[in-house]
């Protein structure tokens, strides 16, 4: 098939599936494969004021499933420190942005992430009141983000720039997973069916919806300031391995220290089973998300739905005055 023929086919297909397919096809026909943005998925970003009351949320907020509860609870341990770090790094990246719309997006992203960090931070005293003090673990997470991934007193110049780019790329990789999880939680109907606590679900879905809403920003910033494919792969490997490692430690820490559980252990088998039941993301979907991010034509706007996120945000009790749902 000649190239002209291929594009004729493309045009025919694009006529049937207007917006999204055309983007893929444009990307396919470019010789060096480039990330293909779905333009219709862009939206103005703005931090929302939220309010959640934890008075009535039980320790095992997903009834009868401490493992899934704690697997999701690890978010509250990783996110406050992690998102404060995003804000810190992106504020340093702001002067490198030469595109007004991207700058506005990054600033909206910073605002949203700062509110996320504070909202999850508020869950930690609640856990402590229920006899599960997460401090030994969060102090380590704080060390990872404040020291290990901090500014490291580098001299101005190439070393400092390299480290900033490396961290921006790492955030883009992490945001791939936050968007993946955000999309998952918005569609995790099984949690509703099992009677999960409505305030906790609202916190997670508000957060998930904003992650879906701003899922392209970190990747766009990375493309704008660097965009190298080797850096993308390298930082993905670091971020993915660190996330898995930190996460399993967090779950094991929670299961070991839960005052209501005796001799409970976390295991990979439980994770796979919970994924099949739909109370956690399925292992298959997680594995599939790896080649997605590593594809040269990947752009976050191809995944998830901004419309679904916007619909949830419009109805979220926590993001609309804070009444208990």
């Amino acid at each position, binding site marked *: 098939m000649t190239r002209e023929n291929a594009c004729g086919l493309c045009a025919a297909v694009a006529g049937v599936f207007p917006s999204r397919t055309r983007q893929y096809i444009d990307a396919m026909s470019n010789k060096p494969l480039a990330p293909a943005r779905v333009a219709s998925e862009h939206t103005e*970003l*703005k*931090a*929302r*004021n939220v*309010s959640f*009351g934890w*008075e009535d949320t039980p320790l095992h907020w997903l009834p009868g499933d401490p493992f899934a509860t704690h697997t999701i609870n690890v978010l509250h*341990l990783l996110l*406050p*420190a992690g998102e*404060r770090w995003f*804000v810190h790094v992106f*504020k340093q990246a*702001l*002067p490198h942005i030469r595109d007004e719309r991207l*700058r506005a997006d990054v*600033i*909206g992203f*910073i*605002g*949203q992430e*700062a*509110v996320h960090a*504070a909202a999850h*931070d*508020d*869950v*930690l*005293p609640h856990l*402590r009141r229920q006899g599960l003090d*997460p*401090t*030994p*673990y*969060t*102090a*380590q*997470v*704080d*060390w*990872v983000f*404040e*020291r290990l991934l901090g500014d490291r007193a580098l001299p101005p110049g190439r070393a400092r720039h390299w480290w900033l780019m490396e961290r921006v790329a790492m955030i883009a990789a992490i945001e791939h997973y936050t968007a993946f999880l955000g999309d998952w939680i918005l569609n995790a109907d099984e949690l509703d069916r099992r009677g999960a606590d409505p305030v906790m679900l609202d916190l997670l879905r508000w957060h998930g919806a904003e992650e879906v809403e701003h899922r392209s920003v970190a990747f766009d910033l990375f493309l704008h300031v660097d965009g190298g494919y080797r850096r993308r792969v390298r930082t993905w490997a670091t971020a993915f391995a660190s996330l898995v490692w930190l996460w399993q*430690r967090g779950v*094991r*820490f929670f299961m*070991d220290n839960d005052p209501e559980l005796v001799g409970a252990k976390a295991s990979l088998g439980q994770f796979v089973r919970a994924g099949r039941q739909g109370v956690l993301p399925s292992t298959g979907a997680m594995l599939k998300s790896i080649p997605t991010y590593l594809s040269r034509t990947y752009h976050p706007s191809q995944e998830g739905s901004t419309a679904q996120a916007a619909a949830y945000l419009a109805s979220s009790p926590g993001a609309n*005055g*804070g*009444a*208990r749902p």
Partner: protein
Amino acid sequence: MTRALKAAAVAGAVLVARRALRARISRSPLWPLPALAEPVSGHAPRRRLRARIASRTEPAQGVVRLVLESPELPEWTPGAHVDVLLPSGLVRQYSLCGDPADRGRYTIAVRLVEDGRGGSREVHDRLAEGGVLELRPPRNRFALEPAASYVLVAGGIGITPLLPMVRAAAAAGADWTLLYGGRSRATMPFLPELAALAASAGRPDALRVVPEDEAGLPDLAALLAAAAPGALVYACGPEPLAAAVLAAAPDPSRVRLERFAPASSGGAGDRPFTVELRRSGRTVEVAAGETALAAVRRELPDTPYSCGQGFCGTCRQRVLAGPVDHRDGLLTDAEQADSMLLCVSRAREERLVLDL
């Protein structure tokens, strides 16, 4: 043969290492990551209290009284105020006017300011019984100091911090006089409570109600001249009242004032001030009707901000000098000591120096 030996040696070493690692991890499950000595996550002092609106009444024309209930409300002393985080994101300060002994409940009273900046309008129109409000813990910049005799002067809704002071003075057996001015009796809240307090103290003349439509402006000079020597004077009301009390007082060092904060009176308006941007060596004037953020962005258009309402923290900047009138619901006391949110907070005096 040697290959088999080598393989066995390696396998043995791996087994030994694995057992050592397991033993080490089971001794302290969170090994081998270092930890931050002073953890940050989850250790911010509790910034916000949540309270349910237990009742909403109108004790006078244009005044709404809210009773807020929650088991977690901290203690407070007369003269204290709370920052109320309204659902729209506005933050407003209101004096507590209930009884400090009534733990678990706060009472605030809010007068509708027609041409204000929207805070009182929101309280009047949008807050209903059963709703939930967020507050920051009470602070007191108008504390009642011990004295044998007090002269209290209230102008209009300025009665709110003075009402608990009257109770405290009466309970302590101190001598007190309250002059309470307002536009008309119908617009002046808490008159029955005050009359009852004066009556139970056996001194009905301790309460002097001066509605402007019946008796004109109060004679402050006569009141203050008749006060016992050494009496402490507490006054709360609009700026002209505060100025008149200071002018009429025989000893201004015995006067304690709470002017209506611009945020809660709205109509009084914000004062202009100057911001020095030390790193860039520039100075900007912030006009009365604009935010510090807007003024700074004229000089430095890249200054980041997002929510514009004081809750996201994107516009936080370090303050090098000058007292700040903090109006955000986000920063902790420690953070407020050396930084501010440009989008809502202003200078308490004429000048601020920022690290920008």
